[in-house]
């Protein structure tokens, strides 16, 4: 294990970034996915193509955007297209290799809810809604998900299917007529999960440093399956950590100093 100090959030972002490659064309969700994608770009995958649903293609922001449409994304993009074109040609057209999503609720088959907690008509909490996620989940060649673990988020049964993952498992996705692979990877603050090749149930394949199986189970509402060949996630390298922290620092400075500095 590394001697470096790092937080679970940092480990999550760095582990997620490692899943991306130079040849990926990645549709980036805001929040944790955006951090992971940009760390990948600033470390081992400088030629990765990052696409945000606001229409920016091949963007390379110097600070993390607060929204999916910050000016920084357009200023650094190869080109920026309209939103209908983004969803028709680039997403539905099958050009996205990885859709990278976050979630409010997830179940053991990687189905995602970002719509409501409770009943749809009389919700306990009205969440923002699906946005791009329903079709990102079906049209991207595969889906990576990143989110922090908690019993509230990792639930036995999600309240609303915002994005279809593997449904009830097995070949449910194919039976629904969805040709793409769906969720193939989940990166949390505690572990790396992959769907079982046959049942499609999410299975912990790697524990992050300083994490235990018990800790993972305590933050999940269902009985967690662990891989027979459970790995330990390599700790962040010094480069990874410094890139991540510098990015976060630039981002914080840009947002705090909003009205003072001039571009």
């Amino acid at each position, binding site marked *: 294990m590394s001697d470096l100090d790092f937080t679970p959030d940092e480990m999550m972002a760095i582990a997620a970034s490692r899943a991306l490659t130079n040849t990926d064309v990645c549709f980036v969700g805001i929040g944790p996915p955006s951090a992971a994608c940009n760390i990948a770009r600033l470390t081992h995958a400088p030629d990765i193509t990052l696409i945000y649903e606001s229409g920016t293609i091949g963007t390379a922001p110097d600070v993390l955007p607060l929204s999916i449409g910050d000016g920084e994304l357009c200023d650094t993009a190869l080109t920026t297209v309209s939103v209908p074109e983004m969803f*028709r040609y680039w997403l539905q057209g099958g050009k996205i290799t990885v859709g990278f999503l976050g979630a409010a609720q997830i179940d053991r088959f990687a189905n995602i809810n970002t719509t409501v907690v409770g009943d*749809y008509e009389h919700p306990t909490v009205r969440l923002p809604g*699906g946005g791009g996620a329903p079709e990102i989940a079906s049209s991207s060649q595969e889906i990576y998900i990143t989110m922090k673990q908690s019993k509230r988020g990792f639930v036995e049964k999600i309240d609303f299917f915002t994005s279809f993952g593997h449904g009830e498992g097995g070949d449910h996705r194919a039976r629904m007529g969805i040709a793409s692979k769906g969720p193939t990877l989940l990166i949390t603050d505690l572990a790396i999960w992959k769907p079982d090749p046959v049942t499609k149930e999410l299975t912990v394949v790697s524990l992050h440093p300083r994490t235990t199986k018990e800790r993972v189970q305590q933050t999940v509402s269902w009985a967690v399956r662990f891989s027979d060949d459970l790995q330990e996630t390599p700790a962040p390298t010094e480069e990874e950590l410094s890139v991540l922290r510098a990015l976060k620092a630039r981002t914080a400075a840009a947002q705090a100093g*909003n009205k*003072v500095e*001039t571009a």
Partner: protein
Amino acid sequence: MVEFLSLKDAVTKYLKSGDSAAFEGFTHLIPHAAAHEVIRQGIDELTVIRMTPDLIYDQLIGMGLVKKMIFSYAGNPGVGLLRRVRDAVENGWPRSITLEEHSHAALANAYEAGAAGLPCAVFRGYLGTDLQRVNPNIKSITCPFTGEELAAVPSVLPDVAFIHALKADRKGNVLIEGILGVQKEAVMAAKSSIVTVEEIVDDLDTHMNATILPHWAVSAICEVPGGAHPSYTQGYYRRDNKTYIDWDTIAVDRGKFQAWMEEHVLKQDPGVFADRIKGLEVTQ
């Protein structure tokens, strides 16, 4: 044929109680000044349409002017939930509203189909989601060549589209650059359109394939410098992220919200937006 009007006159002329209205802008170019003018004029019973309702729909809904919202993502981007929308949906305060909820792909296609004069949009979507269970306006259509079942939603055809753009020339041709969103589609799909711009210039001075709305495709142009704040205008000023973050603590409380609206919207006029972008200007 376009007219150059004050924002007040344009809103009075084109928007009526009970209308459907799209205030579009995808993070960039959100027509804040136009929404505030609508709030000042108290035009109510509105059906509001937008892919990404954020502060202005939180404000319109918090002021009780909205009966229905058609949308695909209702959040304060990067900050959290919309407190006034939640209060209306969860508690019916100050009134209950009807939601028609879609995905981004659906609404983007629905604006495109509206601009294209079609009654519905056809796309591959909603596969395995619960949205079609709760929204009767999500139907399907079968490809007559392959038999594939595709999703269909009604076109977006607003009574009035409100957008903010960079600039217009003196004939009324309007330039949009940067993150384009669905604003061109919103204007082309709508019966009438009101466009606020940073400035009116002699020459748009842009690329031969730039996104330009010809003067005969727009109803009214209103010069409102800073009219997108706290959103931004490419090449003019940056997004005021701090105002977005601060909104959360204002909107969480009904009283604070009302006091803020009184002071910053009801007592103001479109001229205040020019001041609000001071310090955010981009040096080109």
